[in-house]
């Protein structure tokens, strides 16, 4: 199984990523794309991460998904730096022979990414940056997989 992990400032193209996963012969590809919501007066996000640990954590999470579901491929791309409202932040994609594995693995990967990968976000509102607080709902989401 191929796992592709990228942490980058640049944007990504969902079509390129799903085309690459399709080459595995997968019958089912599920993707999650996160974008900066322009609501509540947020004009941008600034994302920082822990280089090295981030890639290790995502690789660990991907290996765990691979152990749980019969996957053909995983792609995780997370952007860092300043991202304006409407821009893409994160892509998680899982490819499998059948849809149930692809759906479950993609949601599992997102839940773990949210709670374990070392990224931190600030929201920009009227020019001021405020750290985003971790949500109890994200820890709750994680518990279903335990």
């Amino acid at each position, binding site marked *: 199984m191929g796992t592709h992990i990228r942490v980058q400032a640049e944007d990504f193209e969902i079509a390129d990523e799903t085309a690459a996963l399709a080459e595995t012969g997968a019958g089912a590809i599920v993707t999650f794309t996160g974008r900066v919501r322009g609501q509540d007066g947020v004009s941008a996000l600034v994302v*920082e991460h822990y280089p090295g640990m981030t890639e290790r954590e995502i690789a660990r999470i991907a290996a765990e998904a691979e152990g749980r579901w019969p996957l053909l491929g995983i792609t995780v791309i997370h952007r860092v730096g300043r991202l304006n409202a409407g821009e893409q932040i994160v892509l998680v994609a899982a490819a499998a022979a059948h849809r149930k594995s692809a759906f479950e693995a993609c949601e599992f990967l997102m839940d773990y990414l949210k709670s374990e990968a070392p990224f931190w976000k600030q929201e920009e509102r009227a020019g001021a940056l405020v750290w985003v607080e971790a949500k109890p709902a994200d820890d709750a989401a994680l518990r279903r997989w335990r």
Partner: protein
Amino acid sequence: MKLLYFAWVRQKVGRGEEILAPPANVRTVADLAHHLRLRGNGYAEAFSDMTRLRAAVNQRHATLDAAIGADDEIAFFPPVTGG
């Protein structure tokens, strides 16, 4: 020992990383946090409430009682908010 700080921890202590040779009685992540808190100012503020902090030892999530040594990379940060 290499120390790394992220997000508001970095902002409060005023730097992203530093090299430290802590005293011999610093044996765990909790000992290190206590040692740093005693520096006062931004450190005292950053490490005042350990329930708000998370730590990693050599790029793995670690609990407060995790053992640490001179060659380790220790990071302190708030709960993560990626994705």
